[in-house]
């Protein structure tokens, strides 16, 4: 009888509220709702504008194979480049974070962290410039070596692109772009590992690596995964760097070192949009919708992983 509510209906307490409070809380709520509206707007825009392409007969869609046939290689290219980026960047980012947090001398650790953070903010177009001017030519000998020695693997079947502007190069550029994002998050969670955990491990006579493996990595795992997903989201949506670096002239292929590569959704929109009109534009926006859904999926997955892991990591 005690925990349930009182027998009489509780009197509705309508506290007197000041005008200032009402205006301010109303403003805050409106701002929040505005975000919902903007997002709904973006969603509605994407759906409405892609409808003509979705309902169009296959011959009218660019490539004349229908919408699915048009978008499929783009989705493949988007996922492939982002996957390469993720596979390359995650271990390196963890290494950077470990190095800065536990290995580097204290005096240089902070400036190093600052420099790496700074790289997260370098405009993507600069990465694109650099990718064409420096990275792609440097990679050619390496690709030739790959083809010669590992050519039996379909990934490195060749023929080698003589300019180096391949899927692997694009993936590497993306990897370098998302490296600072992942490492920043990893560094943060590593730095937050409770001193007690670390000292407990060291007090047991653990070496530095054993301390990291026992105390730091389990604690930071969700942060690293979250950072990786964030980086993946960025890689999926990257536009200019890919448009500049990648040689796009092929369909679905796992061959990473030749000239013929599938484009990515974002880069394809940037490349095709200026000269497009009519249904072509709708088709591009439909591909944008696909990209939006993919990133939505990745972000939801990231949040889910982080939340699920949070229960076990000992973080609060």
């Amino acid at each position, binding site marked *: 009888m005690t925990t349930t509510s009182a027998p009489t209906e509780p009197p509705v307490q309508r506290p007197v509220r000041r005008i200032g409070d009402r205006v301010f809380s109303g403003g805050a709520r409106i701002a929040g709702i505005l975000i919902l509206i903007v997002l709904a707007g973006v969603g509605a825009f994407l759906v409405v504008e892609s409808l003509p392409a979705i309902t169009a007969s296959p011959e009218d869609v660019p490539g004349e194979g229908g919408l699915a046939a048009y978008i499929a290689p783009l989705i493949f290219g988007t996922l492939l480049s982002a996957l390469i980026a993720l596979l390359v960047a995650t271990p390196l980012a963890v290494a950077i974070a470990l190095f800065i947090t536990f290995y580097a001398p204290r005096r240089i650790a902070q400036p190093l962290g600052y420099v790496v953070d700074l790289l997260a903010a370098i405009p*993507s177009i600069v990465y694109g410039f650099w990718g064409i001017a420096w990275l792609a030519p440097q990679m050619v000998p390496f690709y030739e070596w790959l083809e010669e020695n590992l050519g039996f693997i379909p990934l490195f079947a060749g023929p080698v692109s003589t300019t180096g502007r391949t899927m692997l190069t694009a993936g590497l550029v993306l990897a370098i772009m998302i490296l600072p994002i992942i490492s920043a998050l990893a560094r943060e969670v590593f730095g937050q590992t409770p001193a007690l955990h670390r000292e407990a491990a060291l007090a047991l006579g653990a070496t530095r690596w054993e301390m990291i493996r026992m105390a730091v990595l389990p604690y930071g795992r969700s942060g690293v995964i979250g950072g990786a997903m964030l980086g993946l989201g960025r890689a999926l949506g990257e536009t200019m760097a890919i448009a500049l670096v990648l040689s796009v002239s092929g369909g679905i292929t796992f061959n990473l070192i030749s000239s013929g590569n599938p484009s990515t959704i974002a880069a394809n929109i940037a490349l095709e949009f200026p000269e497009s009109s009519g249904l072509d534009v709708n088709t591009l926006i439909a591909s944008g919708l696909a990209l939006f859904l993919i990133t939505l999926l990745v972000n939801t997955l990231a949040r889910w992983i982080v939340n699920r892991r949070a229960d076990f990591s000992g973080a609060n």
Partner: protein
Amino acid sequence: MSQTTAAPPDAPAPTGIPRAGRLPRWAPYACFAAGAGAAVLLGLLTSLNPATFVIYTVVLGTIALYVASRRVEGSRRAIDRLVTCLVVSAFGIAMVPLISLVIEVLSQGLERLDGEFFSSSLVGVVGEGGGAYHALMGTLIVTGLTTLISVPIGLMTAIYLVEYGTGRLKRSITFMVDVMTGIPSIVAGLFAYALFASFLGPGIRLGIVGAVALSVLMIPVVVRSAEEVLKLVPNELREASYALGVPKWRTIVKVVIPTAIAGLGTGITLAIARVVGETAPLLVTVGITNATNFDPFDGRMATLPVYAYYQLTQPGVPPQFAIDRAWTAALLLIILVMGLNLVARLISRFFAPKTGR
């Protein structure tokens, strides 16, 4: 390494704790020197270039150190040393492209980083000379507008989520902000363009459209960082303020925000840095022009990323002049971002709650 002949630094501990053998402190150096020697030999056999030399040295040195450590210190320490080598070399690998990026931009961009670049636009410029004054101003104006739109909305949303929000609306806003961080930048640009085009007719290119597009990208970043920072403000301060008879909104404005101002400033500045270099959305919303335009509500504006993009992809004759300008604009963008980061640091130092005695 000259001191290596001195007494081994690892004299047995005086406390007499039994300990396994340890490698002397010069051992890693020696191992890597040996690795370098072997690398030269290997290189002479095949083909020696700096890249392969470094790779051979690191690989051989790591193996040598691991083997030596395993023999003297046992497997646990050997693994520790191996991981140290791996972490350091992974860090080195990661730094190579990052450093080369900076060097490349500096070497290509410094040449045109002169007075003319900052003082003139592209009006009447063919070939040599010209500058990016108009693009710099355009970037400042568009980014300023973006900040003006995003910060109030983002901050108020964060305040709503932390101070007022309850139930389903709060949860859905949190989720939607997450979704919004995933909007690809080009999609944001197309959305802003379509929005304005439906009112003002197609072909519309205005600074404000770009600002709206960038805001779509910036708001979630602001909300996220502001939310984190506001959550860190201790509840006790809010209660202290309420207990003084201060209304909630004044408590937020005068106690919560000032306490969090350092973090808010840093978060906002980093959010600006995140959008200032966006190219794709500006291409379809703001366009490009040669002349300086201070009015974001009338006509096209030049912005640094778009300027750099067009200078690189549509150079005149001879192309080199335009390409130089593109690199310098890229360098200028990096400098701008660096400046913003610096400002963020200053803000957090400037406004940090005082704790000193």
